[in-house]
């Protein structure tokens, strides 16, 4: 297995979707390729960082509910009736 193949199918490997024989080939590659170990580590951390930055603490998002938007939506309903 090459790094190219490893990285191409990294998601199938992570999600446990690979048949046993292929999974073993991936494990074997990881056992002797520190670069792919780091690539996989960074790939998973990328997903985690995305979640943490956008879901749990999106600092861009103001806390209050915009009252004028709510009124505009309710007014749009009246207009649409």
């Amino acid at each position, binding site marked *: 297995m*090459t*790094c*190219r*193949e490893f*990285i*191409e199918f*990294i*998601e199938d490997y992570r999600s446990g979707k690979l048949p046993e024989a292929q999974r073993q080939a991936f494990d074997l590659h990881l056992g002797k390729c*520190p*670069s*792919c170990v*780091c*690539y996989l*580590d*960074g*790939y998973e*951390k*990328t*997903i*985690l*960082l*995305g*979640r*943490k*930055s*956008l*879901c*749990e*603490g*999106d*600092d*861009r*998002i103001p*806390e*209050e*509910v*915009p009252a004028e*938007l*709510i009124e*505009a*939506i*309710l007014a*749009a*309903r009246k207009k*649409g009736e």
Partner: protein
Amino acid sequence: MADAISIENNAASPDDEGELLAALRAGDDAAYRSLVMTHTPALLTVARRILSSEEDARDAVQEAFVSAFKSIARFEGGSKLSTWLHRIAVNAALMKLRSRKRSQETSIEELLPTFRDDGHASQPSSRWRDAAAEAQRREVRDLVRQSIDRLPEIYRTVLLLRDIEEYSTEETAELLEINANAVKTRLHRARQALRSLLDPHMRETSA
């Protein structure tokens, strides 16, 4: 977000939802106000993630509610009201995104890993620092958000829908009107590109 969360919790029980739905179908003004008050914060959050302009995000939420009001009679109650509204808002935001003129984007190819002829990585990867700890830092979260914004749109939307909004591959395919394989390919490329953008900042050896 404390206000939004407490409102959300108050409205979550299925019995309440049935009553609310009946009131909505009867055209009860107070029920409409309660629905809009309850769900606007969450819908605005998802619209803002997809659209970079605040004005566009608010327009998308308004359009989503208007379209939800029209189809409230057809809402089956098979899913939660919040799930149903969330999907309508994502659709409205995506529609707005498609109608907008594309800005100049970084090409995804430049951000994908490269290999030597024998298939081995041309640049060995380095180990990253602890992600959970890094995510505690505001400047890291800013960097992650800015990096996601730099992804070409067709990749960014797949990453947002799959990894952030946690839609399935099939749901994402339906929302974006592409096939499931395209979702998988784009998600993988988006993550690889984002990994490349974050790499110089996340390497253990860098400051």
